[in-house]
């Protein structure tokens, strides 16, 4: 599923980022790496997602959130 489809309170493991290399790299630099665990802390209507990841809180627009592939099965090892 996509990060954009997750609800408030759900945790997920990042499986992949479907973005052009520049944006992919920037997300990676911010800690959005394969197998990282994130949690959706707020999902305001019309305004993307607010998540916690590696101790930091991030706000992402919907367009970016829909490019991040996640699984809510935190024990999943590899999907790619």
């Amino acid at each position, binding site marked *: 599923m996509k990060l954009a489809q997750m609800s408030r309170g759900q945790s997920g493991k990042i499986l992949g980022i479907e973005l052009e*290399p*520049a*944006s*992919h*790299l*920037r*997300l*990676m*630099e*911010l*800690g959005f*790496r394969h197998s990282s665990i994130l949690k959706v*802390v*707020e999902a*305001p*209507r*019309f*305004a*993307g997602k*607010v998540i916690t990841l*590696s*101790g*930091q*809180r*991030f*706000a*992402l*627009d919907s*367009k*970016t959130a829909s490019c991040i592939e996640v699984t809510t099965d935190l024990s999943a090892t590899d999907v790619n």
Partner: protein
Amino acid sequence: MTCPKCDGGTQVLTSLDQPTITLVGPPNVGKSSLFNQLTKARAKTANVTGTTVEIDRGKLRFKSRTTPGAALHVNVIDLPGTYSLTPVSQDEQISVAHIKSCDGLLLLVIDAAALAGGLYLLGLIGQWQSNVVVVLSKNDTLKNPVDPATLQDLLGIPVFDVNCRIGREKNSGLDKLKAYLATAVSPEKAISPAHFTGPLSPATKCQSQDHDATDLHEPTAHCETDLTQADAVFGWAGDIIAALGEPPLVKSDISDRLDRFLLKPYIGLPVFFALLWGMFGLATSVAAPLMTWADKFVNGPVASGVSTVLGWLHLADGPFEAFLLDGVLAGVATVCAFVPLMALIFLAIKILEDSGFMARFAFLADRIMRRFGLDGRAVLPIIVAFGCNLPALGATKTLPNAQQRLLTGLVIPLTSCPARLTVFTLLATVFFPQNAGLVVFGMYLLSALLVVLVAWILHLTYFRNVGEQRLIIVLPPYQLPLVRNVLTSVGLRVKQFLRGVTVIIVGVLSVVWLLLAIPTTSGHSFGEVPVSDSVYGQISQGVAPVFEPAGFGDWRFASSLITGFVAKEVAVGALAQGYAVSEPEDITQPEELGVQMQATLERTSGGHPEAAALAFMVFVLIYTPCLATLAQQWRTIGGRWTSIALVAQLALAWGLAVAVFQAVRLW
């Protein structure tokens, strides 16, 4: 990328002949707080030439170990935050270029709560620099703080745990860092190196030339190999974190509970707008009496003092005294009058930033603003602009990249400030006595429409990439801003403002005085001439025909517009001066001035004075707000763009004024 050492465009970073400590790190890690603590806020802020990127420079002073009583000075540079060495904005580009090429010591500030990101940056820096010292910030926010000694052993370079927020207080860790820096400065004024060896093999300095630092467009990360490299460096960072023991855990705080409410658009947006209006309303109302006082102080006691001194020098009662008092001191008074307003607005902005509110507001407003090519953060300067354009331009500093700052800086002068309100009120009262309020409201509505429309057009043309950028904001925890940090920052911004605009404002007002003082007809002496017989009056008469298609082709109205270029507050006074009548005490009861204006526009508009009055108001709304704003715009977005904006605003003002006059006349 152009290296600052090789490129004359970035001289601000290179004209240093003393040892240099450069503060680097990701954004919002406490770098600037540490900079203020090290330099005791004695900093100079300068734009990197050809860009809107600002660099803070200061000096760290040590007692010399070899010469008793002497002091050693070390330059300290605070670079814009960067997450990596693959820049995606002009700010990061400047930082990265400097990191790759600089000599001296790099002080890398990393957030203990986001250790992986900080170590990742360190790993990349190791490819270019070995003389690196790590400052661990925000360690106090962790349930299990990182042990700096263990991290130091793992990295092989000095690591200091510094609470950048409390700085000079005991136990902040700052003393240890300063003691290390003092011993690192050798008698020969060279900084002894720390030897960091990162996970990547060293690169050769000053070799990349793939982007011009003065290019307006943001650079883009384009190397797919960077992804592989990033993975390798993150792997190295992961190993270090694993060796430290349990991963850092952040203490839960009030942010979770506040965000639950404030990040809901229907709660958050009204709360944030109310907060903004409240803070800026308070700032402007508190500033108003201070501005009046500052103006009166310069024109009163200071002017008297200058007169007295001139009397001692036998220079009183002549043109020189008049020039000094009415030209130069008038300019100084204008600058001084703006200082309280600027300080209070900067204070409000800093409080919003440091408290964590700004990032949330930007996130919530982003969706709306993005449609017009503006970032969510642009809401703040635009709202400030309705109070005064001048601090609003200063507030564009909060925007994340150069193009956003430029685009916002170009539309801000279209917002209607209270200074223009005096002109609108006068004209509306005289020409639309039954609907004065509606007409003034219409001007504000037109102002908002123009901001949106011009931003949208610029977004569709020159700034096509601006609205396409993705929004990924790190939301800092809510916190109480520290008084010392806030005041230091406000002080720096005010100093920067004074340095940037004083010469321009005083210079132009002195020239205006000279133009008003030089007679063009016989029978008048220098400095004692009616406006109509001065060079200024002649220029106004020469300009007046330009406004004939807009229905107000009269020299007094042209003169008012030229004076309004200096400050809209004095535009009404200029009209009164042109008609040789007293400026009305109450702007809603113009009496003699109103009668004269009606007679003039009746004549110049061919019997459609209301249409001409509307056209005049539209022109006043759109053309250059005031000289101080122009000077600040020059400082913020550079001379080239300010000149373009000036011409474009004049053209738009004239075009719309003509259109309004012709349309209303027919209607």
